């Protein structure tokens, strides 16, 4: 099992798009990400700005506040996920919200977000969520009503090493093998990942 406290996520080469109507709240996330080593952070205040940014720049991860466009932030995510022709439909999306009512969290999960982060956030909590997303990639699921990361969470690791499901027992993470990827290798892979990029 990954030890999050000792983990290292290299976000220096990634581009983040913060979609938040409140510039001050966005400033906090921007500052934290900069502290983590991110250099490419773009802020958008409206859904249109966000779409423009996605079209204009290489974006690796989005953070969206549900209060966007008078509460249509989650609808914006859903529309991105549902549109089979949208080249960004599988981009990792984190919902960042101070409204932690169960109904809001459930709606965020069901719109296709990878993760929900509660505001106010501390650098430690954001780091841990990013680590979680990094080390726990989830298969995307497509049904008639949903497109997004698999919403079922598998328990990983038990004190005695035995789970009730066959899949639980298989959930061990291999030890790191070989040298880490270089930044140019990461950039090359991302370039391939971008749809529409030639």
């Amino acid at each position, binding site marked *: 099992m990954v030890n999050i406290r000792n983990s290292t996520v290299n976000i220096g080469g990634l581009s983040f798009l913060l979609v938040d109507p409140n510039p001050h709240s966005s400033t906090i996330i921007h500052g934290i990400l900069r502290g983590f080593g991110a250099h490419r952070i773009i802020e958008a205040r409206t859904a249109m700005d966000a779409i423009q940014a996605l079209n204009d720049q290489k974006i690796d991860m989005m953070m969206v506040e549900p209060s966007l466009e008078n509460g249509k932030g989650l609808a914006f995510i859903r529309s991105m996920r549902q549109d089979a022709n949208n080249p960004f439909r599988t981009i990792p999306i984190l919902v960042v919200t101070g409204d932690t009512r169960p109904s809001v969290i459930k709606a965020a999960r069901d719109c296709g977000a990878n993760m929900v982060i509660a505001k106010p956030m501390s650098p430690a909590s954001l780091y841990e969520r990013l680590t979680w997303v990094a080390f726990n990639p989830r*298969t995307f699921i497509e049904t008639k009503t949903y497109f997004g990361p698999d919403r079922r969470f598998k328990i990983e690791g038990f004190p005695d090493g035995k789970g009730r499901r066959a899949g639980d027992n298989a959930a061990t993470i291999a030890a790191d093998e070989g040298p880490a990827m270089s930044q140019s290798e990461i950039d090359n892979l991302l370039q391939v990942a971008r749809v529409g990029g030639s």
Partner: protein
Amino acid sequence: MANPRPHTGNSKSTTILAARPARRAVRRDAAIKRAERELARLKPRLESYVKAESQRLAAALLAAQARDIGYAGHVGRAYDASRNIRDVADSIGYELLGFIATNLCTVIETAETARIEYPADIIDCHREAFALALSSAYLNKTLEELPELFGGLLKIAEAAARRAAPPDAETEDK
């Protein structure tokens, strides 16, 4: 019902994020320290914002307390200001202010979810708590330093939630 089928789509971004320890990666503790320094640098600007939103909140709550025409509108404005404070205050060390803002948001959201009238007495109570939290003696206090206030406001929010709960839910508990 259609079987969910895994998507073998185009994005490798998540996996790439896990392209862990590259040479230039910053370790967790160092990254968090650096982020905290960034927040400290932003603090003066955010403090001014929180104080301005607090004034906006106080004005909205006063108007609401006077039971002016448009009570819901005043509460709506109070909610917006309170949400803005909630999202920022804790990050710059105004723990008490952040807590009161969170509590007020919860009270208003609970009333909205249950589609009941806003609990005016509880909202008034938060106005006084905000005034206290903004005073220089309390601005930088932590919740641990003020257990009575912390506990009292929590109880008030719980009371609001009980009021909002459907009557049969309460009897079922008994």
